[in-house]
């Protein structure tokens, strides 16, 4: 029997998180995402939507195709992001 990697393990990427995941933002790593934005621009935009270190996040909803995009509760705001960009958010 194989065990699934624990989704709420020590540190994972928000882009991999499934619906129901709750955690806190540990770091932003713009380089992690294969986004069309530069790492710093992506980080800026994520911060502007409230993703700063220590913010509580919860994945509320997933899209139909490829479970993408995801709706994430960031503190008391709900934000839709694609998994591609969510890879820049390291969560625990």
């Amino acid at each position, binding site marked *: 029997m194989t065990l699934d990697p624990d989704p709420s393990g020590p540190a994972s990427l928000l882009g991999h998180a499934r619906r129901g995941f709750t955690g806190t933002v540990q770091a932003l790593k713009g380089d992690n995402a294969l986004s*069309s934005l530069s790492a710093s621009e992506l980080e*800026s935009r994520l911060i502007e939507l409230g993703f700063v270190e220590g913010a509580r996040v919860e994945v509320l909803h997933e899209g139909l195709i490829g479970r993408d995009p995801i709706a994430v509760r960031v503190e*008391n705001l709900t934000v839709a992001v694609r998994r591609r960009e969510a890879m820049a958010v390291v969560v625990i």
Partner: protein
Amino acid sequence: MEAPLYNIVLVGTPNCGKTSLFNALTGSRQKVANYPGVTVERKQGFLVTPRGRQVSLIDLPGTYSLRGRSPDEEITRDVVLGRATGETLPDLVLCVADATNLRLAIRLVLELKHTGRPMVLALNMFDIAKRRGVTVDVPALSAALGIPVVTSVAVRKGGVGDLLALIDSTAALDAPPAGSNDWRPHSVAELRATQREADRIIGAAVSLPARPDTWTARVDAVVLHPVFGLVILALILFVMFQAVFAWAQPVMELIAGGFEALGQWVQATLPAGLLQSFIQNGVISGVGSVIVFLPQIITIFLFILLLEDFGYMARAAFLMDRIMGGAGLHGRAFIPLLSSFACAIPGIMATRVIDNRRDRLTTILIAPLMTCSARIPVYTLIISAFIPAKQVWGWINLQGLVMFGLYAVGIASAMGVSFLVKFFMWRDHAPAPFMLELPDYKLPRLKSIALGVYTRAMMFLQRAGTTIFAMMVLIWFLASFPQPPAGATDPGIDYSLAAIIGRFIEPLLAPVGFNWQIAVALIPGMAAREVAVAALGTVYSIEGGKEAAEQIGQMLATKWSLATALSFLAWYVFAPQCASTLAVIKRETGGWRWMWITFFYMLAMAYAASLITYNIARGLGAG
């Protein structure tokens, strides 16, 4: 001496209730224009404070920061900094925050403080915040931010009293000390530090309830469900189109009846002759055939504004992002494309929410392919004249099916064009990010919906009264002059300028089955698609006498073959028959290039589609 006009600008994050606060403060004393050189809407309103100070208020586009990533956000930055052409440096920056959601707003306030402008903060929607158990220590927040803070409830009468008093006392200060402007775009580290500072201030002055807005969460559990969510979206769209076609019908018949009666009254009152013909055929039947669509336009805008106000549009974008991504479109393109079902012009203007230029251009390029309400008259006329109202497969109305098919072809071709554009022009670019706030649901405010629908209805009527009216006069003139020689046996129009022009173009359009009357109608149809219907009416009514004016449909059924009618429908799915759309594309894209690309690709598609339709129909014996 009267005190000079006090200039206030409203700044806030998207969805903070800024616009409803603007409406509450200024009422109907608003004027909407564009900033020079860009199509960003400049909304200015006026008010007089309780102490009698004249105030000008500008509602700036919502933004999360002053970095200016889109034309809208650049305007906000430039106006606040006093850099925008033709704008004075604001006397006061009125920052608006959604009291239920202060994190991003406080960060914006901290950034705005760097501009050195006098500033106040209004905690809007304070009633909702209180109901949810949010408590704000207003004096502490004010002290921490170093600016005056008041609470407001824009949607309630008297909910802006404190704010007005604050404006008065701020305006009364003689030449308020403007700080120095040391604003520059924040680096990532500065943004992060500012957000931390904002969180610290909120932590000290605001206590949040344990539970979030359960109502929004419960609605979203259904509305954003991967499967049911899409079903609900489809249902909403279905109801919307049902409303546009079925519910608006009785009102439309009423309007049509009114214009018909008016025409007959003119015919009975005025002596027969040129003047009677001009008023009855040119003015009344022409303008009337366009105004008849006002109920449909009001209906579609009503739906779009309601969904927008309720907070559903962002959800629709979320649900459609991946599906539209398959066609190379951005999730945010859903709202502009949906608006394009009403009219491509607001649709194209709504593409400003797409910050990536390539995605925006693709959306602008295909927006005119969505079946706008101006095509409805053309489709309705041809379908009712040529497609029998029989049931197929027992329960589906054939006419309705054809109408649906025309919509489907429009959507499918839009997706196809977008896919090709993405594939051939922008293959090497990674898709732009999709990051969007999903605001809490709010009950739509009737007043602002009514205001929005009213503005758009007036815009349509104004167009009917000016452009379309002018075109109708032109068409009537072309169809009436020169008058037929005495003793002529053919209908008068055969001798007119219209016939001469029409016959000149006819050879070009003959392969697609168009006769010279259609060729004539297509020219004024460039002003607006629906004019073609009126123009056909004018052309045929002048040719065939007064009975024809009342029944364009039956007239066409005897004059056109089925193949011609189908070819005409195919033409209208694609043809760039709208000068205003082309003008807006030129303005929005900042040059002629994209306008001509749109014009020629649509023209090519229209010609090809008509050619294929006409020849297949003839091959099947419908010629």
